[in-house]
């Protein structure tokens, strides 16, 4: 069970009509590393085709996957699903060389949405937000911190942040919210 400081409990952190920032409930997360030959068998076990284009996503039920690198994927799932995924992928141990690492305790997810969400992200994100298409995700940098940014809609974003960096990232986002609200 992940223990998080009380100020990092899931819930709405800032809300205005055009911008909302909230911390999402904890989820199961895995890093999956394998060579290209392993994508088909691993996809069969997980219930979706592993995308091979960097940034591309797939989902099946509550499970989601994004391709982070040529041999690296991030799998997100419900907490109860963690054991199922672990056992499923373990059946490949003899046939598909791979590494599956449970990262659930490492990261939190912040949701940023609203008509000014993209503007808020530009505060710490050197990249052009329009280069991340809706329905894709990227590992990138946010104010010096490695994050995975998911674009769920035109103005709906999710940031996976390492727990130890979360106070820093949240501080910046909430300062940005106040700045934008002040006009």
């Amino acid at each position, binding site marked *: 069970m992940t223990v998080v400081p009380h100020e990092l409990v899931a819930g709405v952190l800032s809300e205005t009509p055009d911008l909302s920032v909230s911390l999402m409930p904890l989820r199961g997360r895995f890093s999956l590393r394998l060579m290209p030959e392993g994508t088909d068998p691993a996809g069969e076990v997980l219930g979706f085709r592993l995308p091979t284009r*960097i*940034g591309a996503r797939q989902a099946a039920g509550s499970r989601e996957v994004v391709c*982070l*690198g*040529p041999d*690296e994927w991030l799998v997100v799932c419900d907490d109860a699903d963690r054991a199922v995924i672990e056992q499923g992928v373990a059946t490949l141990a003899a046939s598909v060389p791979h590494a599956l690492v449970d990262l659930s305790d490492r990261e939190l997810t912040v949701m940023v949405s609203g008509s000014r969400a993209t503007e808020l992200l530009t505060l710490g994100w*050197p*990249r052009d937000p329009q*280069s991340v298409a809706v329905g894709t995700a*990227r*590992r*990138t*940098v946010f104010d010096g911190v*490695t994050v995975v940014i998911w674009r769920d809609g035109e103005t709906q974003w999710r940031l996976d942040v390492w727990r130890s960096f979360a106070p820093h990232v949240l501080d910046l986002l909430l300062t940005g919210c106040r700045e934008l609200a002040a006009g």
Partner: protein
Amino acid sequence: MLLITCPYCQETLPEAEFVYAGEAHIARPEDPSQVSDEAWRDFLFIRTNPKGPHFERWRHLHGCGRFFNAVRDTVSDRFLTTYKAGEPKPDLATLTGEAK
């Protein structure tokens, strides 16, 4: 800010996602114990440090995580090309010809 094309992501991205990782195409001697002290010193420390096109390694740290190679002009800071690790050195004459 420099914009760098990652040959794995196939996207042109801000420098802040990348880190520099020294000169490229420096092969470690197969059998270090058979190498003379001078040759080992050269492998460890001696670099070309050119004024002009430089073959160098970069890593897409805040991204796909891959190391790749680049040719960057050390005078203008212009990237002439980037290519995947393990691919042969591109022909410099072609690159600098294109740059003009």
